[in-house]
């Protein structure tokens, strides 16, 4: 059976496979962004697509983030299914006007007349020594905005499958791809396809503590969970996947079972997604808690270049293990 066949692949290839599939399935789909064509994509996610689909559908843009993002909105309004690629989340700040003032508002502001069926993909996060203008995790910031949906693909399945589902969504969807994950190798079902984009995913079951994370921190949590398991602490691990609208039911159900929650978020702590999740647990599961909700976030500094400093700024496995151990054992 095809479903049982698994193929070796990488995150980057999974993204490319998702793009290729969408371009093949719907002729209204096209990709535009900086260096998506001739260069093959900054992270090689669109390598080869220009040759296969031509310059009409794989469009290299000038370095005009605001305008090619706005053009994506306009093209969506005009009946196309654009995929806008913004090289990194830091560059997306140049397109904030279009994302926040237009994409997120048009449906509501027009009284339901104009939905913006647009997908915007971008790389996010640190871990590659790219310093303070290429390494931040601002997806939690976008998750503050009503009117857009925010996804973060941590797994090969999601890297492959979130795109098609996002393209079917009538509203603007931003897909975040942690740049540190592009070279990640793994196995993917040969017939892997679209995945649902409304729920978080339970990665591992446990009874002692719930780890809530997303993106590249998921793997740090998995490593931490292995270490903790060896010590007899069974952690439940949730990959949020959807940062807006939050699937709170999944983490609330888990907290009801484990009575302890630790959130691992690569964003800065103040005003973070971790803060939002913590508040929701406090509001809705307070009496189920045996310990205060805790958070591990990035240090509140612009990301430094030097390796040891960057590592110190980002959430790390050891800190997750120590915190979880203290929360369970006291």
């Amino acid at each position, binding site marked *: 059976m095809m479903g049982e066949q698994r193929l070796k692949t990488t995150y980057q290839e999974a993204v490319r496979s998702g793009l290729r599939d969408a371009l093949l399935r719907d002729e209204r789909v*096209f990709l535009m962004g900086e260096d998506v064509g001739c260069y093959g994509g900054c992270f090689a996610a669109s390598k080869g697509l220009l040759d296969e689909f031509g310059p009409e559908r794989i469009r290299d843009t000038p370095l005009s983030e605001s305008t090619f993002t706005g*053009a994506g909105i306009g093209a969506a*309004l*005009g009946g196309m299914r654009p995929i806008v690629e913004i090289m990194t989340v830091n560059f997306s700040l140049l397109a904030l006007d*279009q994302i926040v003032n237009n994409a997120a508002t048009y449906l509501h502001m027009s009284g339901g007349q104009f*939905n913006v069926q647009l997908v915007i993909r971008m790389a996010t996060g640190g871990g590659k020594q790219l310093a303070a203008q290429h390494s931040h995790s601002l997806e939690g910031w976008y998750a503050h905005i009503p009117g857009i949906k925010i996804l973060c693909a941590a797994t090969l399945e999601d890297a492959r499958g979130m795109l098609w589902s996002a393209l079917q969504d009538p509203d603007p969807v931003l897909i975040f791809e942690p740049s540190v994950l592009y070279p990640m190798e793994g196995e993917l079902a040969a017939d892997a396809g679209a995945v649902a984009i*409304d729920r978080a995913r339970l990665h591992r079951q446990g009874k002692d503590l719930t780890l809530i994370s997303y993106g590249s921190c998921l793997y740090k949590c998995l490593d931490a969970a292995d270490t903790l398991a060896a010590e007899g602490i069974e952690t439940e691990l949730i990959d949020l996947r959807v940062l807006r609208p939050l699937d709170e039911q999944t983490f609330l159900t888990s907290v009801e079972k484990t009575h302890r929650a630790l959130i691992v978020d690569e964003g800065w702590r103040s005003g973070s997604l971790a803060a939002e999740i913590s508040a929701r647990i406090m509001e809705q599961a307070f009496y189920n808690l045996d310990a205060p909700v805790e958070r591990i976030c990035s240090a509140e500094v612009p990301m430094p270049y030097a390796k040891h400093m960057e590592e110190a700024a980002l959430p790390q496995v050891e800190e997750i293990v120590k915190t979880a151990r203290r929360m369970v054992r006291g």
Partner: protein
Amino acid sequence: MNEQEYQLHLLRQMLRIRRFEEKSAELYSLTKIRGFLHLYIGEEAVAVGISEALSAADALVATYREHGHAIARGMAMGPAMAEMYGKVTGCCRGRGGSMHLFDAQHRLYGGNAIVGGGLPIAVGLALADRMQQRNQVTCCCFGEGAVAEGEFHEAMNLAALWQLPVLFVCENNLYAMGTALIRSESMIELTRKADAYGMTAASVDGMDVLAVANAARAAREQIITTGMPFFLECKTYRFRPHSMFDPELYRSQQEVDQWRQHDPIQTLSDKLKEHGWITEQKLNQLEAEIAAEIAEAVDFSEQSDWEAVSELTRFVYSDPEAQ
């Protein structure tokens, strides 16, 4: 339509906008309309002239000073006025107000209140037309203040680079809110901005509706023929303050009075009278018809309901479950 009927039609359209906005200002004073209200009075020849040149299938992206564009494109006064009242029968259910008139039926994509914010969207609409082989144009109106925005330059470049059917209409009324063009731009010959992108440009007297309509028709024809965008500057002037809160410290009464001598409505009606194409009696009749249309729109707005508060979160997402 013969020439006489055509010019009478233009006069009628400009007068409809003028009287609609005069009534809006009055209703603002009565606090029936709140928020910001940016009047187009003095600039009517631009929206009316441009609209004459567009086909029904063409798209229009406008700014927060867009009552004239909405009416010229065919939006009925009832839903336009009710929108400013904030009533559920407004074109956007009272969600947008004066600055955000949207109309799917007439392909009006806002009402954008971020200066320059509509230009990239116009480029995208034109891109969709090009990719789907639809032989139509997207018109994007913006003030000369937008020329200072990065989005203006990005959008002009991309439209020219990708050869997209966009008619960029710069409504140059000389002031970006209170900042005179001469105080904000190092190069005030705006058509030269288009030169920088290899885009054909023209400048026209924006107080002359016939000239605007002719220039816009020629521009549209060129866009359709060549597939290239076009930049059309319409030199105009707003007779009223920027918004209802503007004490107008930045310009002299004398300057305003001088421009009022070029009132596009007065100019055209004088011309029509000269030709013997309209009598005082006919003009009065026209005014009475427009007054009745406005009275009906106001009545409609007064009678209309407010949107139920339970609808507050509707249309944040298309799927109500997503909220």
